[in-house]
């Protein structure tokens, strides 16, 4: 066997994937040729380093849950798979950009849009502060309960709306309790869930708008805003955005 041939077969030789006579021929060549033997050692070391350096992954629980969920719903298979949601870029930025275009034609409309956008931004900033404050010892909940039927009535008489408090325990988001925060001049009910060591705060306020979900990040916290039943919900957490999305999807389903 010549060196060129050996070089070509070396990698498959190491994997024991050659025919028996080829395997034998390479072995004999390596015993006689120092240069090819050095190449074999280099490739074997590389292969060992790859195996040591890279790990096999385990499927995250959230993905298992999504798949189990799909398997549990018979009709989940027929419709086309929805495209993954684009992450990270808040839609209100696009809205504001659109507002600028409209400004040329109608300054009044622009003013309204900008006002909403600013009002929204200040609420987002306020609940980020509230979320951070809630993580300090002793600030998380006023009513500590894992029972939705205790948390929901607790808000009666404390706030002027009744927030949704779905039971998401079986999906791995146990309820931790509730509290009332004073944000932007009004008492806002906050329902708290947990996921492993992460806290998810859900804020509720009355809403007259009807936009789609809005995702954003502030200070490393993820936020998702959505509307349901005339109320505006905001979920805030340091949880990764995929799991927070999953949480919101489950919350909406109630």
């Amino acid at each position: 066997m010549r060196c060129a041939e050996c070089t070509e077969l070396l990698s498959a030789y190491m994997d024991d994937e050659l025919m028996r006579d080829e395997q034998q021929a390479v072995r004999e060549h390596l015993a006689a040729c120092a240069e090819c033997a050095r190449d074999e050692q280099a490739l074997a070391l590389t292969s060992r380093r790859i195996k040591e350096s890279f790990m096999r992954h385990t499927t995250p629980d959230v993905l298992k849950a999504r798949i189990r969920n799909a398997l549990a719903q018979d009709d989940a298979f027929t419709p086309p798979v929805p495209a993954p949601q684009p992450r990270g870029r808040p839609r209100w930025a696009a809205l504001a950009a659109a507002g600028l275009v409209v400004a040329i034609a109608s300054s009044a409309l622009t003013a309204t849009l900008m006002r909403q956008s600013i009002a929204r931004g200040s609420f987002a900033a306020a609940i980020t502060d509230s979320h951070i404050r809630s993580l300090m010892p002793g600030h998380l909940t006023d009513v500590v309960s894992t029972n939705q039927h205790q948390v929901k009535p607790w808000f009666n008489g404390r706030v002027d709306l009744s927030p949704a408090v779905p039971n998401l325990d079986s999906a791995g988001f146990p309820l931790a309790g509730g509290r009332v925060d004073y944000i932007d001049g009004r008492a806002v009910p906050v329902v708290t869930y947990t996921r492993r060591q992460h806290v998810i705060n859900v804020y509720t306020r009355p809403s007259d708008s009807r936009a789609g979900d809005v995702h954003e990040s502030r200070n490393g916290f993820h936020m998702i805003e959505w509307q349901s039943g005339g109320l505006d919900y905001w979920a805030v957490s340091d949880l990764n955005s995929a799991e927070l999305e999953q949480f919101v999807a489950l919350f909406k389903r109630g």
Partner: protein
Amino acid sequence: MSQRDVDRFERIVLPHLDDAYTLARYLVRDEHDAQDVVQDAVLRAIRYFEGFREGDARAWLLAIVRNCCMTWLRQHRGERNAVPFDSGTLSLADSRETDARAIQRSERAALGRALDALPDEFREVIVLREIQELSYKEISDVVGVPIGTVMSRLARGRKRLASALGLGVKEAS
């Protein structure tokens, strides 16, 4: 899909979910994108499952995942010219780190960058062989190319990674 098929799917396909996720993680190189791609692939697998009767369920699932990853990569080419190296794929270094380990760690990072820099068709055979330990026949089924092609891609991929480690190996002419 009948309840019996669901049970069968759970019994013979789902045990390979970690393999599916590992492959996607190395091909699309982002934790969340990998999750989306695997979810998409498994939903497809559920839909095609009636057509799967006998054979290697792992290779069958990996082939679907691999195709979904390649489609995803084609769709996102361009946006991902400067993907940062997904260091989440590296094995954790020991916390009591000695000098030797620090060297090893920088070697790992170099290897990670070199793996990332490989063309997709080389990277996939390296991952399937070295990390997931499939045979050439299984890789050929997953990727959909002849065994001879698997062999030559693997040889070339390994040589590139060897040179990233500073180990020169002569090229086949």
